[in-house]
């Protein structure tokens, strides 16, 4: 019962946050509401005892991806009035997307594999069961090739992103740290010794 109350509380927050993402005018508020949405969905995942996925969701999306989002949104300084202008013009696109998503959800729930009457509520896992351990065992045995492929794909994406954005401009002032460290006193300091002179 305690879990149920938590579930409904988190769900309410999640839905409110998700609605706020698309309804607030200020893009910074939108990004922050998205953070809240991620965080509450992680909390809901914790309720069904998938702690690894929940914590990774917070770690990756809240801790890294959304920080960069927020960076960009804050730097862009979007004009609020301008953002409002396109609302009616692009509304049909929004409705269309919503329709497709609803149809997909109906399709999932109507199917006999995932539907509401497909299976009982999953039993709570026994004490000592570690979600992280199970995932690791599966990933590194049965699905090791898929896992490695995903890793290679990510690596390629990283290399590609760097290759695409790295531009060599002429006349750029670059500091060579090795050179800076290798500097000796003799290279920079010259002691001039001279005899005292009589004031003329």
């Amino acid at each position: 019962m305690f879990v149920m109350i938590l579930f409904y509380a988190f769900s309410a927050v999640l839905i409110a946050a998700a609605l706020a993402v698309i309804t607030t005018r200020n893009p910074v508020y939108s990004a922050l509401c998205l953070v809240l949405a991620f965080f509450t969905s992680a909390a809901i995942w914790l309720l069904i005892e998938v702690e690894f996925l929940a914590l990774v969701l917070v770690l990756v999306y809240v801790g890294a991806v959304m920080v960069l989002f927020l960076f960009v949104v804050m730097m862009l300084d979007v004009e609020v009035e301008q953002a409002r202008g396109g609302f009616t013009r692009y509304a049909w696109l929004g409705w269309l997307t919503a329709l497709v998503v609803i149809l997909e959800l109906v399709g999932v729930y109507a199917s006999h594999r995932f539907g509401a009457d497909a299976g009982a509520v999953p039993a709570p896992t026994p004490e000592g069961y570690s979600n992280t351990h199970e995932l690791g065992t599966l990933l590194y045995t049965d699905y090791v090739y898929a896992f490695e492929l995903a890793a290679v794909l990510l690596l390629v994406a990283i290399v590609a992103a760097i290759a695409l954005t790295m531009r060599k401009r002429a006349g750029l002032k670059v500091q060579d740290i090795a050179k800076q460290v290798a500097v000796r006193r003799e290279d920079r300091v010259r002691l001039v010794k001279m005899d005292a002179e009589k004031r003329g």
Partner: protein
Amino acid sequence: MLQSFLEVLLLPVVQSMIWILVVAVSVILSVAFAVYWERKLIGWMQLRKGPNRVGSIFGFWPGVFQAFADVLKLLIKEVIVPARANKVLFGIAPIIALVPALATWAVVPLSPDLVISDIDAGLLYVLALTSMGVYGVIIAGWAANSKYAFLGAMRSAAQIVAYEIAMGFALVGVLMAAGSLNLGEIVRAQQGGALAWNWFWLLPLTIVYIISGVAETNRAPFDVAEGESEIVAGFHVEYSGIAFALFFLAEYANMLLISALTAVFFFGGWLSPFDGYLSPDNILAKPGFPWLGLKISLFMFLYFWLRATFPRYRYDQIMRLGWKVLIPVTLVWIAVEGVMAWFGVGPWRA
């Protein structure tokens, strides 16, 4: 009905509340004394006396209540909200900065049988929550509607994101050694005296973790987010009164936390360094909270020592150190660790 309501709903909530209160109050009190200790230490290192006016205990420790006096002063000062600042975000930013610093203590094992929440994915929980700390800084910097604050927030966010990666990789080495994400298990896996602790076999990772810990908490010599000489006080330049005090508290709570985590991950947590060298009956060989407290104090001392010793890093050098030095070092050492585990060198589990 009422009976079951009380038992099912209220009891766990009240119990958790009490624990949370106990930990939060102890952390806040520790922060008060850590601040006094820091000012005193840096004073001695610079041939000054440090704070010596407010209170003393039986004539010793002059100035010991300085931190309390400061808090009182900040409490009764006016909180100024700058014109055209975003009031809502300006108000919640200090809270967002403080909450992760306190919440992470939930999984830190304080003694062999004292940990608030003994969860299996403790290490992930630590990483997830510490990565949230950056929001307080960014939101504060943006909401204040000040260029200095925003610059400080940007610097701090870039720095935290960069050093988090090195930190995460250093912890990968730890969980490889312990074979568990549970913080209590990680400590137990290090049993057997000071040389069996993780720092010995994971020395490069230990150094990387300590350096990135200093960078993550925005402390000297990595405190470019505050950089008085360039951007006044960075992200909290517009904060005054108790709102500033919350940022201050968050910074020191984070330092305490990183010190505790360094002790847990690399220096055997609550284990005794003499375990295995002295007879088990000897009081010095017994595990317990005093050892953890001693280790936390040592790392706090390291923080203060660093602050009194080193000048501030240049910004591009901070980025270079994070991305081009610390991350490659951790990657190489994880590979070395894999090879060592393969050949059974060191205390690795098969």
